[in-house]
C-alpha cells in the first residue's frame, strides 16, 4: 500500500517561545487508520494542522502524496447561512467543480451519511450529531484519499459518538482512504484504528505505539469484549507512563 502522509522530525514552536511539538515522526499509508492520542494541550491538534498544511512546521518535513484531503474539525464548523446541501457543496465550489458534478456528489455523500432528506435545512435546526454528519459529508465530497480528523466527536454524547464511529468505519470500508484520527479517548482510538500513537504532554513527542490486532469490519459488540478492554487499558497505561 502506498504512503499518503509522512511527517519527519516535525518541530513546532509558537511565537512567544512555547515549544508545542517535539520532533514528531509519523506515517500514514493508504487503507489504514492511525489514531493519535495524548493529554489535552499536548500538541496533537497542532500535528494535524501541520499535516493538513494549515500550519508550517518550525522545522522538519511534511510530505503529502495526495491533494485529495478531507479534514474534519473539532466543531462541525458549518456556515450557518448555508443549507446542509450548500454547506456540503462548499469545497466543490472552492475547487471549481462544475455545478452538475457538485450536485451529484452532494446527493451521493448526503445519502452516505443518512441525511438525504435534510438538504434544504439550515444547521441551526440540526442536532449536534447531525451537524457532525454534515461535516463528514462535506469532507467526503472531495473524494479524499487521506482523511484528517481533529477530535471530531469529542463534543457529542456517548451514544452519538459510537454511532458516528460505526458510520466512519462503514465509510472507511467502502472508500478505503487512509486516516489520521486525533482523539483523547483511548476507547475511540482502539475501536477505530489499526495503530494508536501516544503522545506525551507538551512539548508533544510520540512516546508509544500500540498495534490493534482486530480486523475490519469491527462489530459494535467489540466494544464490550474483554480483549478490547485489555487493549484500551494498555493504551491508557502508555498514556499514564508518558505523563
Amino acid at each position, binding site marked *: 500500500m502506498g504512503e499518503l502522509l509522512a511527517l519527519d522530525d516535525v518541530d513546532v514552536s509558537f511565537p512567544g517561545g512555547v515549544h508545542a511539538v517535539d520532533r514528531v515522526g509519523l506515517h500514514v499509508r493508504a487503507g489504514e487508520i492511525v489514531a493519535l492520542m495524548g493529554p489535552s494541550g499536548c500538541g496533537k491538534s497542532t500535528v494535524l494542522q501541520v499535516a493538513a498544511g*494549515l500550519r508550517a512546521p518550525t522545522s522538519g518535513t511534511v510530505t503529502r502524496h495526495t491533494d485529495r484531503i478531507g479534514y474534519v474539525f473539532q466543531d462541525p*464548523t458549518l456556515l450557518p*447561512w448555508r443549507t446542509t446541501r450548500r454547506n456540503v457543496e462548499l469545497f466543490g465550489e*472552492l475547487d471549481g467543480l462544475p455545478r452538475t458534478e457538485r450536485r451529484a456528489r452532494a446527493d451521493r455523500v448526503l445519502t452516505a451519511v443518512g441525511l438525504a432528506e435534510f438538504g434544504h435545512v439550515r444547521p441551526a435546526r440540526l442536532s449536534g450529531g447531525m451537524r457532525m454528519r454534515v461535516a463528514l459529508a462535506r469532507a467526503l465530497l472531495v473524494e479524499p484519499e487521506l482523511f484528517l480528523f481533529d477530535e471530531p466527536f469529542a463534543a457529542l454524547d456517548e451514544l452519538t459518538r459510537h454511532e458516528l464511529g460505526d458510520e466512519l468505519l462503514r465509510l472507511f470500508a467502502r472508500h478505503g482512504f487512509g486516516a489520521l484520527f486525533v482523539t483523547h479517548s483511548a476507547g475511540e482510538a482502539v475501536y477505530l484504528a489499526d495503530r494508536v500513537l501516544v503522545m506525551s504532554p507538551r512539548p508533544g513527542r510520540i512516546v508509544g505505539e500500540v498495534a490493534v490486532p482486530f480486523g475490519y469490519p469491527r462489530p459494535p459488540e467489540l466494544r464490550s469484549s474483554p480483549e478490547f478492554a485489555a487493549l484500551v487499558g494498555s493504551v491508557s497505561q502508555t498514556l499514564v507512563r508518558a505523563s
Partner: protein
Amino acid sequence: MKVRIVRMAKKVLPPLAVLLVVLGAWTFVSHVVLSPRRRFLLPPVDEVVRVGFGDPDNLAELLAALSLTSRVAGLGLLISVVLGVGLAVLMAQSRWLERAVYPYVVVVQTIPVLALVPLFGFWFGFGFASRVLVCVLLSLFPLVANTLFGIRSVPEAQHQLFDLHRAGRWTRLWKLQLPAALPAMFTGLRIASGGSVIGAVVGDFFFRQGEPGLGVLIDQYRSQLASARMFAAVILASALGIAVFVVFGALARWVVGRWHESADG
C-alpha cells in the same frame, strides 16, 4: 388563531395604554393648564390633527416636504452604504490599511456637523447636495464600524475551511466574510438609517435653498407661530424615523432571520 389574537393584544395594549396617557396629559395641559393666550406653546391634539393634517393644502405641503426629506435621507443612506461597506472591505484587507484609514473614519464621526455647515455651503451650495452630505456624515460611521466588526468576527475555523482549499481573497470575501458580516451590517444599517433621517431634517435648518423639506417647514411654522402645523410636521418627521427603523428591522429579519438569532431584536 385565538392564541395569536391574545398574544398580539398582549404586545400592543401596553404601549397603546401609554400613548393614551400621554395624549390625555397633552389635552389636559393645553386645555386646562395653559391660558388661551399661551395655548400656542402646546396646541390641543384635535387642533393639530384638524389644521395640520385635515386641511388639504397644508397636508399637500407636508407630504411634498416628507417626500423630499425621504429622498434626501434615502440618497444619503445609499451613499453611506456603498462608501461604508467599501471602506470596511478595504480595511479588512490588511491591518496596515485599517490603521491608516480608521482614524479618519472616526474623525468624520466626531467632527461636529454644525462646524462644517459653512464649508458645505461654500462648496456644494445651500441646497439638496449639502443636505445629502449631512446625512452621509451622520450615517457613515455605524456602517463602517459594524461591517468591519462583522468581517473581523469570522471564526478562525471557518477561515481554515477556506485555507484548506486555497481560496483567494475575493472568494473568501464573497462566500465567507460578507455573508458572515450580514447580521452586523444590518445592525449598522438600522442605526445609520435613523442617523440619515435626523441628518435630512437637521440639514434643512441650514441648507434652505430649493424645495422645502420637513425641517424647513418646521422652522417656517415656528417663525409664524403656527404651532399646530409645526407639531404636525414634527409628528411626520418622527413617523418617518420610526417607519425607517421598522422597515430595516423587517428587512433584516427577512434576509438573515432564517439563520441568525440577532435579527429578532
